[in-house]
């Protein structure tokens, strides 16, 4: 069977076509790289700085201030309790701890600028805590907690242990503070570190704000690229992995690790079951950032409006934001199905927790794969797959 002339002709044409395509691609690359360097902005019409302004002025800075004011109240409650360790001061302290922890959920994702520089989120919410090291730190009256191994010995998770971890009753714990002033000193120091770091960050934003808003391009060092990556990293690691996936055993071959939930001691020793509330706040915080919703309820330019803009300009592009919002609703519904006590939930019926993981994972895919592709933003971190 010899090749007919026609076939030969088609083969040649195909070959020439490939060469032509290749040159076209090379030319395109050359043309693009010349005038844009790292910039790969495909939609110059959309003003990215409008998102940055809304995020900075109506979300990030106000949310930091909200957190700071709760933290200040927590500090007062700590002062009161360490001066007079009694039941009513304990209750007050517990309540302020929870309020601050809830507000924290709205800022953990902003690991940018000063916060990133001082490893802010590691110092405030690393869990599980290191019980042994905290006890050693208390006994040795250690004040300098800057070593990275001390991240698991401080912050709001550290306060959880200090308030709820030394016994199964209020009286038992209050007695510790009465018997040994090192406990109160350590607790005071944890608050001193948190309030000082938070004040530094707010101070920094007063000048950083303009830098942040003006960096409106699309390179790996542009504000929206960094913030969006931080947001997705937080959603994947801080929310999905830490609050749900690790405790339910997703990364340990199905072996459950309920002791790794957020705010473990408050649930474990039956003070108050708060892990679910904290996870719900974190989910709301994430959705709010996506839709550009501020703490007073108004909405502005956001990742959502950006996606909507792209779709309205080119309907061949996926209409992604309704899908994401629907998936946020599903994740919220899944969380609602859970027992207030995550330890019990994991021990008795982990399938509901795994269902929550699945719903959160769907959003990770929406944000990290679909959204970043539409926005032409590169992922700047290695997968947080926890193994």
């Amino acid at each position, binding site marked *: 069977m010899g090749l007919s002339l026609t076939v030969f002709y088609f083969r040649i044409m195909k070959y020439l076509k490939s060469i032509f395509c290749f040159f076209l691609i090379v030319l395109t690359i050359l043309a693009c790289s010349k005038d844009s360097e790292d910039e790969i902005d495909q939609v110059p019409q959309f003003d990215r700085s409008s998102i940055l302004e809304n995020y900075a002025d109506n979300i990030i800075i106000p949310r930091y201030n909200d957190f700071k004011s709760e933290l200040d109240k927590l500090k007062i409650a700590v002062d009161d309790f360490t001066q007079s360790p009694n039941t009513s001061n304990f209750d007050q302290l517990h309540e302020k701890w929870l309020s601050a922890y809830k507000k924290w959920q709205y800022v953990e994702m902003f690991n940018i600028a000063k916060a990133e520089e001082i490893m802010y989120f590691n110092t405030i919410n690393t869990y599980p805590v290191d019980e042994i090291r905290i006890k050693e730190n208390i006994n040795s009256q250690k004040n300098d907690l800057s070593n990275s191994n001390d991240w*698991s010995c401080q912050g709001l998770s550290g306060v959880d242990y200090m308030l709820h971890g030394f016994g199964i009753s209020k009286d038992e714990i209050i007695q510790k503070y009465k018997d040994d002033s090192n406990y109160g000193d350590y607790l005071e120091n944890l608050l001193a570190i948190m309030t000082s770091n938070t004040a530094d960050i707010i101070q920094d934003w007063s000048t950083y704000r303009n830098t942040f808003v003006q960096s409106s391009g699309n390179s790996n060092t542009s504000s929206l690229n960094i913030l969006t990556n931080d947001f997705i990293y937080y959603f994947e690691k801080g929310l999905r992995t830490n609050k749900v996936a690790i405790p339910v055993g997703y990364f340990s*071959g*199905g072996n459950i690790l309920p002791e790794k939930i957020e705010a473990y001691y408050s649930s474990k020793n039956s003070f108050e079951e708060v892990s679910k509330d904290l996870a719900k706040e974190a989910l709301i915080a994430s959705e709010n950032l996506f839709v550009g919703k501020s703490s007073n309820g108004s909405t502005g330019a956001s990742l959502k409006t950006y996606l909507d803009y792209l779709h309205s300009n080119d309907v061949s592009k996926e209409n992604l934001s309704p899908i994401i919002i629907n998936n946020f609703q599903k994740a919220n519904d899944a969380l609602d199905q859970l027992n207030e006590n995550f330890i019990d939930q994991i021990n008795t019926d982990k399938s509901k927790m795994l269902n929550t993981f699945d719903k959160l994972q769907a959003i990770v895919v929406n944000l990290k794969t679909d959204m970043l592709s539409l926005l032409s933003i590169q992922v700047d971190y290695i997968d947080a797959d926890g193994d």
Partner: protein
Amino acid sequence: MKNYTTLYNYFFILIISFVTISCSSNEEEITTEIIIPSNYEFLRDGVSTVSFSGQTTRLKQVDEIYLALNSNSYTEAQLDEMFTDGAGFTDATLNGTGKNVRGKTSAGCAAGSSATQAQFDEQIADFANNVVPAWSNDASAGVAGKLTDATRSIHVNAKGHEIDQTFVKGLIGGMGVDQIVNNYLQPCQLDSGSRTDDNTNGILSGDKNYTDMEHKWDEAFGYLYGQEEDAKRADLGSSPTGNGTTLNKYFKKVNDSNQPGIAEIVYNAFKKGRAAIVAGDYTVRDAQANIIKINLSKVVGYKAVDYLNGYMDKMGAGNTADAFHALSEGYGFVMSLQFTNDGNESPYFSKSEVDAMLAKMDDFWTVQDSDLTSMVGDIKSKFGI
């Protein structure tokens, strides 16, 4: 063109048929046709002949040992009890089953080395005696303790090894791959004693519903798929769950990224080989065994490369704990290389070659990127990946 191809195909089939018919008529024995089922299920008189519960037990035991090596609440004796005696597990169904992990570590009938078993014992001892007492101390070069960076916290020995990783990744080769490629898929198991004749003549194993040879093959299958909740589902081949902390987990990862489709190749070979056993066709069986040996060995090769490279990337990003974690996984997968099988009954790397690599990466605080890079190159070229 299309018509010619079709005609050609018919002609080809015709020739093959003639050859087959002429061959069959020459043979004395009656060979049954190999019937490959759509899923991994084989029946005798309507009852399943597939069983690998012992493998599931051992894999779950490894999961618990992994957790214990992540905790500071176990003594050396308790860890040894789990590893060696198959007792002391939180999950009571894992205790007193007569199954244990150590007895199946570096214990293939075709290879096996007590010196390698001892390496696992030493890791347990090092963990219990040096890492646990320093659980919350700061680790540094030559000092066991805790190491934290922006991504994770780990507990390491004086050389920076995170022992839960070195141990379990070592067992992926040392137990999982080894038991499959150097034990249950080997003639020294499948054909041992009267097993070949028994299988050919349909003589069952005691009061069981399977022949010994069928069961040995299923035990190999179990070391890979033993923690699948439903190993009979039709899409097991294309989408392994990755359940558990051992081979299946990395088998899935390799199938998801390094070499999509590898899982289907291995699965189909398991099915076809098992069907060949039912049909009494041992040539086809052994050909399938070879496919499994080569491909499961490649899983180890891929992951060794990934984690050695991962270490260098993570050090580059300034995350020492994350990097040491990756290198610990890499160390375990390098250990596992000696348990591979290239289809010609040789490991891709011998024990002495592996020990030489381990020596070069022994101290994580001083390991040279140039050494790791050259190992990566060697592994890639040996496996052709």
